[in-house]
């Protein structure tokens, strides 16, 4: 069986700046994989390449066996992408927005309805779904867009900073939702984050990035042991500083 994601020596440069340099990794079905790194490390570039929004200069990535370079249409049918700080169409109600997104993924009305019902359940916004999105708080919008990302049950969900700017309780809700969806629907998750603790409690495996390359990769426990650290913050500091 194909892994959910198989990244093979992928590289990308912006002019003279090498944003991603010969990166390879795999994610299995139902696995949560976290990318850690500072601003400019190359996390978003990797996610955008896998979402078929940017073209790699070299290398390739297979999403459930489909190449992002030669089969982008098939790839897009297998993924859902949540950009950093993504919002939604503010003039729509939450429910209509979920219905709109469902319509992008499913042609049959019955499938769309099932998808929307799942989205409504995942976001947990209740009656607020009938209000326009421009009345939502930041946390509510984040829950809504996360729900729309996972409700089509994609083979791979790509989340860029999913809890960025959220308070503790909202962040916890988001993390729980990610773990639940990975377990219940077998969705593989690739998420980037600045928050080491978030990845320590959410991700099955993590990679630390700097200047477009992977410095270290493994389960949180493996990384803690490898760097003889108490927390992932310490792991990150030691990996980045080459200690």
């Amino acid at each position, binding site marked *: 069986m194909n892994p959910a994601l198989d990244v093979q020596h992928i590289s990308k440069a*912006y002019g003279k700046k090498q*944003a991603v340099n010969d990166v390879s990794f795999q994610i299995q079905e139902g696995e949560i994989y976290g990318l850690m*790194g500072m*601003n*400019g*490390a*190359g*996390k*978003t*570039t990797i996610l*955008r390449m896998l*979402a*078929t*929004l*940017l*073209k790699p200069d070299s290398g390739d990535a297979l999403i459930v066996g489909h190449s992002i370079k030669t089969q982008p*249409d098939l790839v*897009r*049918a297998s*993924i*859902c*992408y*949540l*950009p*950093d*700080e*993504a*919002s*939604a*169409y*503010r003039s729509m109600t939450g429910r209509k927005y979920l219905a709109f*997104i469902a319509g*992008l*993924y499913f042609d049959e009305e019955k499938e769309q309805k099932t998808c929307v019902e799942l989205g409504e359940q995942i976001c947990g916004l209740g009656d607020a779904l009938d209000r326009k999105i421009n009345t939502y708080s930041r946390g509510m919008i984040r829950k809504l*867009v996360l729900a729309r990302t996972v409700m089509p049950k994609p083979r791979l969900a*790509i989340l860029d900073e999913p809890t960025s700017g959220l308070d503790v309780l909202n962040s916890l809700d988001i993390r729980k939702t990610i773990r639940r969806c990975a377990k219940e629907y077998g969705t593989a998750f690739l998420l980037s984050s600045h928050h080491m603790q978030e990845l320590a409690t959410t991700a099955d495996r993590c990679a630390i990035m700097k200047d477009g390359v992977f410095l270290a990769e493994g389960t949180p426990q493996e990384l803690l042991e490898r760097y003889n650290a108490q927390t992932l913050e310490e792991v990150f500091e030691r990996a980045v500083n080459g200690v």
Partner: protein
Amino acid sequence: MMHLLKKELSELINKQMILGLLGTLLLIILFGGIMTNTVTESMTVSGDLHIVDCDDTEFTRSVIAALEEDGYTVHTADTAQDLPALLEENGWKDAVVIEEGFSKAILEERTAGKMQSISLLTSTTSMEMLAGGNDSLSPVRAKIKELLMAQVIGEDMKFLADPIKTTPYTVANGKISQTDTYTLINSLSVFDKLMPLVLFMLIVLTSQTIITAIGAEKADKTLETLLASPVPRGRIIGSKMLAALIVALIYALTYGAGFLVAILMTMSGKDGSLDVAEAFKSMATATKATQELGLQIPMWGWAMTLVQLALTLGIALMASIILGALVQDAKGSQMASLPILVLTMFPYILSMISDIRQMEGIAGIVMRIIPFTHTFTATSCLRFHDLPMFWGGLIYQAIFLAVMTFLALKLYQSDILFIGMPRIGKKKEKN
């Protein structure tokens, strides 16, 4: 306070804004120069008079001599057999025909002497109207009155108040019709000025709508969501185009209807009130002259004009989709629509006041390169049988639209959409 002010100014004044401003300034200067020259040329009275002296008496010869003494260059002919050919061969835009028996009528019989005012119609622009149709008429009339009064002063002052009866004629497309040029232009304006207005509204509104929408989608990252979904890019672009078109059509029809009412009001009465019956009567009168002069547009012409309209809109929409994709923020959206606005506004205004078809040199080339120009001049091309420019413009627009569509599709499949173009308000890529 200063601290905050500096921050606000640094956000408002950036490289992108200054470049856009300078670009627009250059365009305004360029087109402003073209427009000023056009208006000046159109308004200049040459000092040349064209007189067909069929009477050829001592009195009419004395009128011509007196006009020459006054500094006019008088061009004369002695037969009114084929006036269209006379105007074309001599390059005259107008002529005054002094009919045989003119001198006898006013000097001996004390009745109005008969003259004909001939005007060459080459377009239906405002400049044609401002020029008054016949530059020769007023000086000739004034001189005749002057000489007549010198001869008969004190005899019949009522007669002296209006001793000339003028019959207006208009020449166009090598044909002549007994009709007043001003009335004819006014009648043709119903169609020839309404369509450019509707087109102008459509282009401006659709462009602004699309660019703003794409700018908002980029800011909210909803565009990334859409483009990463399993929906073909062509469908995403097409949907944006169509939605903007529908909204713009609603606006354009509303404004177009308002403009039509305004035109009908100008045609229906002197007091500015709306009298539809009177307006249509006026239009019907002009229709006869239109047919006599070959100025009517055939059905295929209207159909092809609609095709041009659609092509022009398509070009504007594709340009907007491209510009919208290149901007990086809300401020960029505002600036991005300026090129389309400027490139639409100048052909529109020029087509209202002048005949772009007759523009030559660099100005003519610049105007013809702008794809929107060809739809603004479409009805004029058809009325005055300038088919090479009409078909050339249509083919040019079709090619232009194909190129723009290709570029839009390429752009939406490229990295530029997200990492931006160099020097277009590019923000540092977040990783």
